């Protein structure tokens, strides 16, 4: 249906991810979105941290950078500030972005720097074998939460909204078409944009929490999510335990690099 090949580093295949891992489905959606936008591969710079999801940058034929754990946004900020013509896309996991990288996450959102973040939320640390994440729902099990997680979980998207992001959306791999469209809109929107994707991790999360097969996990997304439009018509009780998908925020706010450019230009004019 769609030819992914020209965007891939085929010699690195097969993917490192486990059988049934949702990350590959997200990767495909990302490629379709970039293709739709008609971006030149040379102008796309993809930056990731450390984690299963962050291995993505090794497979795509862009300018790619696999940084340190949690720090992708700092490298990306340097790139965007230094070379604003690049489309900078950050690939990160729930742990990478909101545990160790939480500070850079809220600051990039505050600056509203023109970077698109695709956040692979699998509710767990996949790469290191299933430790609890700040996004693991309360009560769920992880290798470091053998009796169930006793901490409260983050609302990742809400955090980005509060910090000042221009565009915030949530999607599932179940609805990969919506996912693709949201990624497209996120890249289009000037400023900090986030797409939080719920991406099943059958190995480190599913198994331990008896969530069934990869298929079960994908189908479960259908049940647990409601669209923004549907949610608006639902009562608080009905929404209990539901995850809202779709565009949560889409506003225009001053963008960091453009504001800085104004400063540079003010001297150009003078001179």
């Amino acid at each position, binding site marked *: 249906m769609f*030819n992914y090949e020209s965007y*891939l580093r085929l010699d690195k295949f097969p993917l490192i991810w486990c059988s049934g891992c949702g990350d*590959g489905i997200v990767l*495909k959606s990302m490629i379709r979105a970039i293709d739709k936008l008609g971006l030149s591969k040379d102008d796309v710079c993809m930056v990731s941290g450390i984690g299963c999801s962050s291995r993505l940058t090794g497979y795509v034929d862009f300018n790619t950078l696999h940084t340190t754990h949690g720090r992708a946004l700092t490298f990306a900020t340097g790139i965007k500030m230094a070379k604003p013509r690049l489309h900078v896309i950050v690939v990160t996991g729930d742990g990478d972005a909101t545990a160790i990288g939480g500070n850079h996450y809220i600051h990039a959102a505050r600056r509203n720097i023109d970077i698109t973040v695709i956040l692979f939320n699998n509710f767990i640390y996949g790469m290191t074998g299933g430790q609890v994440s700040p996004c693991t729902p309360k009560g769920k099990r992880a290798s470091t939460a053998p009796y169930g997680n006793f901490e409260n979980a983050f609302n990742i998207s809400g955090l980005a909204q509060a910090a000042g992001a221009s565009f915030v959306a949530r999607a599932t791999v179940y609805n990969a078409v919506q996912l693709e469209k949201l990624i497209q809109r996120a890249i289009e929107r000037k400023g900090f944009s986030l797409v939080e994707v719920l991406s099943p991790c059958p190995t480190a999360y599913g198994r331990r929490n008896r969530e069934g097969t*990869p298929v079960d996990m994908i189908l479960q997304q259908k049940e647990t999510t409601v669209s923004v439009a549907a949610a608006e018509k639902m009562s608080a009780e009905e929404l209990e335990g539901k995850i809202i998908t779709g565009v949560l925020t889409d506003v225009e706010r001053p963008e960091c690099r453009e504001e800085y450019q104004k400063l540079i230009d003010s001297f150009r004019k003078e001179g």
Partner: protein
Amino acid sequence: MAEETLRRKREAEITINTAWCKGCVICVELCPEQVLVMERGKAKVAHLDKCTVCGLCELRCPDFAIVVVDKNKSPKTGE
């Protein structure tokens, strides 16, 4: 126009790259027409005739291992 397009005969060509397929069963179970089956841990086309070229299997295959092409559609004019 939508009507015509839909009525045009669809003929599927499904390619499975077994070197990449990890046997996650996603394509098999989520195909609305039960076109696919598992064999020796890999996906396999069983009932090509039933395929409606809906593309769902390809869309959701995490490993780029299954490719569906509508043979009656020129590759250039993909939707």
